[in-house]
């Protein structure tokens, strides 16, 4: 489902968000980016980032210690 994956495991705020912003610039509208992180802060950070930038936060799934966030570029 995701067009691309961004591995941010081991990185803490704000790096997952900063890297997401950089990666999203490369994607086309409609593309879905899967961000994998283990910093729990991303559960709040990503929806906030999406709200501020007008992108869509599709889902946040926790798989063990990893959090998979699916973000759609609008």
């Amino acid at each position, binding site marked *: 489902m995701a067009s691309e994956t961004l591995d941010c495991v*081991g*990185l*803490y*705020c*704000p*790096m997952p*968000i*900063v890297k*997401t*912003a*950089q990666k999203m610039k490369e994607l086309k509208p409609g593309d879905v980016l899967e961000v994998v992180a283990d910093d729990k802060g991303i559960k709040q950070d990503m929806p906030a*980032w999406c709200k*501020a*930038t007008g992108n869509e936060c599709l889902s946040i799934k926790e798989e063990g210690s990893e959090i998979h966030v699916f973000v759609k570029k609008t």
Partner: protein
Amino acid sequence: MPEQKEKLTIVMFSGDLDKALAAFTIATTAASMGMEVSIFFTFWGLNIIKKNDAKLKANNFARRMLNIINRGGTRRMTISKYNMMGLGTSMMKGLMKDVKMPSVDEYITMAHEMGIKMIACSTTCDVMGIPEEAFRPEVTVKAGAAYYLGEAREAKVSLFI
């Protein structure tokens, strides 16, 4: 249609390592959210943006003394509490490396790439006798309080760190 970007201004008065990292964390996050960010370095904050090997000649005794004890540069930055003659700072740097937190140098490079404006306070430079060549290339402008306020009055968020 270009939308008006929200502005964030930060006055970086402190030269402490921990405070600088907090400032850059907020600045880069704001930039990644589409905000237009400018950071005004003044007083001790100038130490953050001086080159590590900056030549600081000065025209009077007080300035020469100041430039010896206040050399500046990211290499010499310390945390604001528990520095304990450098031991606290080393330990804190170790902890931050563990979680892969960017160093101030890395943050400055990142900020520059993200278009964050880094500005040196011209008055403080004159007070302390710091020449333009002493600053890193990422610092583009030397400006005063009026320029800062020009940005701040249009800014949605303004911080003093």
